[in-house]
């Protein structure tokens, strides 16, 4: 009885950890990475736009 109860508790936490990790991966880690990359891309595009604008403004000096 003690053996089966111990196994159940251990198995519960083992499976809880795996499910929790998969959900974190799906809801937090992957969206976070996507958002980070999107932000970087947006930042880069904004910087390129500003540089292009600056370059055009310099043509008017």
């Amino acid at each position: 009885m003690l053996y089966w109860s111990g196994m159940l508790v251990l198995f519960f936490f083992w499976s809880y950890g795996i499910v929790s990790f998969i959900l974190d991966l799906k809801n937090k880690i992957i969206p976070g990475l996507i958002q980070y990359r999107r932000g970087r891309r947006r930042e880069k595009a904004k910087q390129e736009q500003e540089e292009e604008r600056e370059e055009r403004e310099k043509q008017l000096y």
Partner: protein
Amino acid sequence: MARVRLEHVTKRYDDQGDIVTAVDDMNLDIDHGEFICFVGPSGCGKSTTMETIAGLTIPTEGEIYIGDREVTNLPPKDRGIAMVFQNIALFPHMDVYDNISFGLRLRDYPQDEIDRRVERASDIVQLDGMLSRMPEEMSGGQRQRVAIARAIVREPDVFLMDEPLANLDAKLKVHMRTELQRLHKELDTTIIYVTHDQEEAMTLSDRIAVLDSGQLQQIDPPLTCYNEPDNLFVAGFIGSPSMNFIEGTVTENALETPNFDLEFNPASVEGISAGDKVTLGVRPEDIYPGELRDEVPDPSGMIQAKADILEPMGDEIFAYLLLGDGETSMDQEMATNDQLLMSIDPDSDLEEEESISVVIDRRNVHLFDSATGEAIVHDLIPYEAEGTASGSEVESDD
């Protein structure tokens, strides 16, 4: 010859899925040597219009011509223009000479030509003896003069100026305004100037282009915009303090407003008839105290009011009057019908809460269509001269 033409220029932006029209079907024809001011409230599209001329923004639709060339898609350097920016944008690590000559060095001009042009430009903007100074050692006005000199050395066909005086203090602004007028006389070049300050536009320009919501409202000489505004927006924007507007209804022989009637012959005014809703526009300087009635060219009858607030300005006093029973409505739209702003002599002994009778000079009364906002008439006298409404009086409701 640097004539600038905009034909059906439209600029739309995609603002996170929403399409925003910054410039809407703009048509402009600016002659060589003209000083044109784009004026309007923030977000009216004046800077975007200038940026399309400069080549900093490509229009979504329409064409831009400078001289005989179509320049709509050309880069700024190939348009023959120079621009002075609001933020001045001098290079902090370069001295005045290097800042002024930057554009010429970029285009590989010979050194003696650069020297000649820098000398001439610094002479025009009165920067002699300051060519070796660094920007940080100069005042705001001097820095702005460097930016203008940098534009002059390019010898462009067209000067573009985007609120160049906006960051200067009031005294310096007035001084720089006269400098710009002198510069325009001396260079005889087309200047397009953006400002939100209507006083600046009135004093500087040959013609004012008044913009609102990306649309051109009126383009005319300053005094025409002031005396004969095309619509309610122009009438309210040009002139400081702003024109008084009072809603009214045309009857058989008068304009009936909530607090007084202004007699005239509607049949003599093209475009209106009895029953029409119109807006009466009258400038503060065209309202006179009742005792001066005999000196007013075509006075209305006495209008009873109560002085609410007095604002002494030194050379005049702005008096905010409450019409009718002396109470004003909390409703903004209704409140404008109850109030009248007039300009009175600084020696006047009028006090707040005091009752006053005033008359309006009917030669300077404007009527606008309340529905469309378009101007109907700017002067009731010509119709009276035809003998249709001679000697008409304003009857007060009080």
